[in-house]
């Protein structure tokens, strides 16, 4: 592109931006009691147009520069090396699950004892881990089995409400409720999945999305059980295997700090919750890693790649998908129980579509099927709104824009690699004559 072309292109973009901004930014409606009044803000349109002009110009120059750089690189290197240079990130992706995961897990374990770890940091870590766990759970459905689930938050809600109701009304403890919540969420998964899993991918997407909405509407309107929009509050906090976190435990019980002879600190509970979700998330991870090596896990991945071939080989697609759906739902339910236990308060607001979208975004941004990528994406998407808290008005705007930009920049996800778990000829063996 010549300079003149670039300039023309940028001017066009600025013109479009100005036109787009004209009604929505240029005029502001003001409440005057009667008909809406209008305030004009034409200076903002000029700013928007200038920003788009500069941005577009910069983008063009950068893109051209990158193309030239690649071409010059391709001239210098032989083709094999050029492929190696193509992307640092995809190379990272290939190695990620080998060294990145242990590093991340190690960091997660020592994190609460690092010098910068205060209450806020540990709380944030807990939130990130909830999303990591949800991402790993959804990854079974979306990443491994290739089923597009837009209503994952419904299972999360089922888990949360199961925990809340059982512990409030029947006095169940956290550890008794956890399996029940998972089981119930899985049952919901089967009930929903059974009729719809025969459908093609995109129909499945809309049905799951609808299911998410149904659950939310029921939670909002079934007042006597769910408390409606006000939700459920005063959910009992989980105890340390029967030893509560309390400054003065009730008569006859030992509290956590007495058990270990520590000074009472409210931080104990937060650290305990952090480790609890870390353990739950790691269980999800280990489960996923192991089940990928079982026949059913292999069937999921095979089904994702080619359904017709799988059917021809005698895999029952509906049942196989159903297991993935139910197991994914179960982990969603576990995460939901933990969420309810940690917050002590739940309301339908926490289970809106945007949550499903965020979890799906975590899976896809992380690079489908990559466990480490999901951790990075979860950290990024949960910490971004926190970092941008000062510009609280703009944080969701930035969030949406970031989702678009990352997808445009790396459609395959941050750490994408979709290698088969099993090879016909493993690396190092000669094809054709391996076995003696």
């Amino acid at each position: 592109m010549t300079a003149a072309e670039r300039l023309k292109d940028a001017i066009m973009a600025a013109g479009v931006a100005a036109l787009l901004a004209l009604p929505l930014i240029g005029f502001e409606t003001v409440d005057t009691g009667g008909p809406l009044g209008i305030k004009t803000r034409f200076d903002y349109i000029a700013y928007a147009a200038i920003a788009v002009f500069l941005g577009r110009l910069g983008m063009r120059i950068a893109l051209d520069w990158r193309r030239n750089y690649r071409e010059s690189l391709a001239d210098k290197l032989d083709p094999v090396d050029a492929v190696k240079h193509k992307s640092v990130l995809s190379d990272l992706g290939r190695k990620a699950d080998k060294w990145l995961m242990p590093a991340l897990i190690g960091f997660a374990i020592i994190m609460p004892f690092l010098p910068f770890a205060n209450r806020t940091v540990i709380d944030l870590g807990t939130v990130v881990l909830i999303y990591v766990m949800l991402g790993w759970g959804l990854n079974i459905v979306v990443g491994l089995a290739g089923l597009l689930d837009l209503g994952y938050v419904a299972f999360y809600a089922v888990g949360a409400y199961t925990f809340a109701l059982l512990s409030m009304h029947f006095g169940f403890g956290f550890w008794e409720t956890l399996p029940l919540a998972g089981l119930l969420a899985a049952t919901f998964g089967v009930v929903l999945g059974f009729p719809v899993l025969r459908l093609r991918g995109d129909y499945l997407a809309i049905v799951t999305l609808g299911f998410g909405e149904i659950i939310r509407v029921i939670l909002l309107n079934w007042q006597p059980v769910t408390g409606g929009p006000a939700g459920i509050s005063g959910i009992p906090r989980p105890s340390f295997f029967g030893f509560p976190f309390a400054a003065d435990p009730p008569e006859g019980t030992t509290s956590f700090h007495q058990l270990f002879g520590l000074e009472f600190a409210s931080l104990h509970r937060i650290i305990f919750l952090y480790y609890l979700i870390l353990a739950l998330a790691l269980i999800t991870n280990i489960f996923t890693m192991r089940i990928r090596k079982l026949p059913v896990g292999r069937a999921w991945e095979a089904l994702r790649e080619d359904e017709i071939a799988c059917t021809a080989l005698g895999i029952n697609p509906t049942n196989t998908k159903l297991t993935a759906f139910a197991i994914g739902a179960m982990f969603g339910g576990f995460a939901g129980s933990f969420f309810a236990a940690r917050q002590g308060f739940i309301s339908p607001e926490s289970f809106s579509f945007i949550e499903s979208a965020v979890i799906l975004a975590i899976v896809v941004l992380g690079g489908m099927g990559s466990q480490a990528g999901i951790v990075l994406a979860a950290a990024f998407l949960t910490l971004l709104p926190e970092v941008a808290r000062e510009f609280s008005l703009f944080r969701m705007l930035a969030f949406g824009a970031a989702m678009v930009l990352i997808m445009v920049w790396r459609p395959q996800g941050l750490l994408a690699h979709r290698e088969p778990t099993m090879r016909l000829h493993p690396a190092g063996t000669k094809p054709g004559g391996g076995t003696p």
Partner: protein
Amino acid sequence: MEYFLQQLINGLTLGAVYALIAIGYTMVYGIIGMINFAHGEIYMIGAFIAVITFSILGIVGITWVPLALLIVLIVSMIITGLYGWTVERIAYRPLRGSFRLAPLISAIGMSIFLQNYVQIAQGAKIKPLQPMIRGGIELMKGETFSVTISYLQMIIMAMTLALMIGFSYLISATPLGRAQRACEQDRMMASLLGVNADRTISLTFVLGAVLAAVAGVMVSLYYGVVDFYIGFLAGLKAFTAAVLGGIGSLPGAMLGGLLIGLIEAFWSAYFSIEYKDVAVFTILVVVLIFRPTGLLGRPEVEKV
């Protein structure tokens, strides 16, 4: 009986609006096989532009309703169409040819972005609009209940009908429609034969956005209130309508829209208004179980 008729009229009005939005979904799905999640937001933007333009016209002094309506429709259609074009250009075109979920995530991101953009630019409060078209015709007078059809409802239905006819003509008999159907069948082959596929896809988005803009204008008049959140549920229902009718099929989208509108109106009238969305989705699931490709969709044969 009177009550039933009244609900039928209300349902058809609502259904007409859903059908207009659903066409945008179904066309985009037909041509590039993706769910344009931001389409509900495009409709919301159309409604906002309508409210703003109406307010400006009111201040300027153009209050003759037909003229004001015409100006608002044209302004809203042009600018919303431009939004549709821009969204496609920024968020979807770079992703053409990448795997199936990438444009979907990008679309969800775009939807979040547009929602917050409007919220920041125009405030989170509900925007009221003064009723402009009042009155109606009393069709039937019962003892306790009389059936009326308002002029506005008549305008909505007539406009939808006209747009549907025009649109069917556009798709079936114009060069653009032919190009569109060609791209739908085989994009690669169409571009080899000289159809500008990128341009056709862009125009599809613009057309969808224009129809959504009309729906937005109508809804802002019909309900008299607009807020930045209306796009999500309307988009969801319109997409449900498109799936119900058979995604990719234009008459299917129209039929699906009308059905969803009717289901919603009757469910709210006879059962409970809180669970109308549950009813809509339940019926969708039931229909999909028995007809997996929707009511008017072609059964797809997957080949190796």
